[in-house]
């Protein structure tokens, strides 16, 4: 029982970064813009969040800093993709390279520094709750709030005019434009939102999960988030499932390390999140191919009224 609580608690704790990033990417792709810059935006967000929180002594400002820094990169990507109609794959890769370089260059003085971080909510009345008490005690406020983004985005996409505009811009921009949807503005907005979420995801790592700044600390989570959007077939609820799956793999790693059970060699365990990401990608591509309408119709395609 204790083992189970340990695993579930770590699962919940390790999934928010992938969750936030994939929700952001999901909105961006629903609007028609493929953003492969997530990994770079997460790194920039992680550094900006950590440094801002440290200098301002405010976690809230730290989160704002993370969103602003990653959002700027997202605007750059949006400008290239929406206005210049550039290739979204290359632009995204360039943003990832730029973000990785920027965070490494500017982050060097902060390696190994300590700063503010979100502490776990344990040690209060929460510990006493039956069953979920010990589980919640290891979580932090930021991570728990992330979960709220899932129903919020489900509501936004499915039940509001804005959600309809977003889906229209990603599905058939020409028809959307004819119906009066400001396609360019929607696509800018979605990309910016995706960037801000990636920034928050990075900040989760540097302010809550493993407090502090380390070069390349995302370890590919941005890319995993992009894969999880495909796994999620562009639905927020399934993105949560994907993020939890990633968290579970992480938790199993910790569990085997902590208990010393070596069912699988440690290096294979480290590979698992990456291998399983490919695995779920294959599964979803093979099994769900007949499901039409799950891929946004105009994903990755620039839109212009003239053509």
């Amino acid at each position, binding site marked *: 029982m204790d083992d189970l609580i340990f695993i579930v608690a770590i699962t919940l704790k390790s999934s928010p970064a992938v969750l936030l990033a994939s929700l952001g990417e999901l909105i961006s792709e629903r609007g028609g813009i493929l953003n*492969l810059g997530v990994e*770079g935006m997460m790194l920039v967000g992680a550094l900006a969040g950590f440094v801002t929180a440290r200098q301002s002594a405010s976690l809230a400002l730290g989160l704002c800093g993370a969103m602003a820094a990653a959002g700027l990169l997202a605007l*750059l990507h949006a400008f*290239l993709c929406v*206005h*210049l*109609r*550039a*290739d979204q*794959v*290359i*632009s995204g*890769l*360039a*943003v*990832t*390279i*730029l*973000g*990785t*370089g*920027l965070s*490494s*260059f*500017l982050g*060097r003085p902060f390696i190994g520094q300590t700063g503010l971080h979100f502490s776990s909510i344990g040690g209060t009345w929460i510990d006493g709750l039956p069953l979920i008490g010990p589980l919640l005690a290891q979580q932090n406020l930021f991570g728990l709030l992330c979960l709220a983004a899932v129903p919020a985005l489900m509501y936004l996409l499915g039940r509001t005019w804005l959600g309809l505009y977003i889906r229209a811009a990603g599905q058939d921009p020409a028809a959307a434009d004819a119906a009066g949807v400001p396609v*360019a503005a929607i696509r800018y907005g979605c990309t910016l939102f995706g960037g801000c979420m990636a920034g928050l995801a990075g900040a989760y790592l540097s302010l809550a999960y493993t407090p502090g700044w380390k070069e390349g600390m995302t*370890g*590919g989570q941005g*890319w*995993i988030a*992009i*894969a999880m959007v*495909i796994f999620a077939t562009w639905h927020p609820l399934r993105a949560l499932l994907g993020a939890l799956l990633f968290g579970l793999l992480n938790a199993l790693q910790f569990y085997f390390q902590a208990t010393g059970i070596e069912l699988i*060699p440690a*290096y294979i365990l*480290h*590979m698992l999140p*990456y*291998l399983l*990401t*490919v695995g779920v*990608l*294959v599964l979803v*591509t*093979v099994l769900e*191919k007949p499901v039409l309408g799950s891929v946004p119709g105009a994903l990755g395609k620039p839109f*212009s009224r*003239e053509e």
Partner: protein
Amino acid sequence: MRLKLEKKAHSGLRIVPLTLMIAAPVLLAGAVLFEAVGADPLAAYAVMLQGALGNWFNCSEVLVKAIPLMLTGLAVAVAARMQLWNIGCEGQLVCGGIFAAGFALYAADALPAPAVIPILILAGFAGGALWALIPALLKARWNVNEIISTLMFNYVAVILMQHLYFGPWRDPMGRGFPGTAMFVRSAWLPRFFHTRIHLGLFIALGAALLLYYSLGHTTWGYRVTVIGLSPQAARYANFDAGRQQIAVLLISGGLAGLAGMGEVCGIHLRLQQGLAVGYGYDGIIVAFLAYLNPLAVPLVALLLAGLIVGGEQLQAVAHLPASISMVLEGCLLLAILAATVFSTHRLRIVRDDEEGP
């Protein structure tokens, strides 16, 4: 009011304004960063330039760094010719290095010396190709997104390599040094001109020529181009797109594997930390800066190698992080992307009432 992209009457920028349009924002971005960390931008650029071209040895180091970049650049370019995105060169490079190292450590001394180098080259190519095989099969069979699959395999390859040199392949005499034992003499790639320039340079140049010829002047190259430009036309012409996708990704992976073999057997002479330093990702930039032209790849690789060596010198001399070269690379790619658009289009601010039907 809104911004509108429209075709220019006279399309095409001259080479000089185009170069300026690319270089100016990149250099400016770097300057802003240097200012931000309190360094003098001009002095910093001077150190980088001096570091890359200051003397004969530094120049030769630029050539040395250009070798893996040429090979990974070719790897990305050949796949991109078919609209395939091989982002996994880093992992394929590592796997080529692992294969070459395995052979050099455990088989090379049993073979006659002249046979070792050709087998090493084959091993490097095979390692890289093998690492691209699974993403290639997944792409051809089920159309699984190759960007994600090749990228995920990068992380797997690096973990595997670390396991090998920290674990079973670790040098028993190395006193805890994370790396294998040094290879036997016969498994060292020959070096030239009393520098670290090794056989890999000629392999890379040969590969560039071969790819240029086979992509531009053979029916195979024609098929690849057609499949890339228009899958529908390819289907109509009865080209087996799936098989070509596998072939092209294997060649791409193999080229990246050769880069790893060159680094391991030409420079490090053992498998050790510092093999996966991003040459695979740099290959993406090289390929697109070269507009996917195999003959332009070596030149662009030299340019990028200069940037990287300059960055390393900056770290050694002025104690500024070498990652400035990565920042400049990212900016370079973005600037190229924008300049490509602006060579045929321009942005104009239009009022909404100007808009015709």
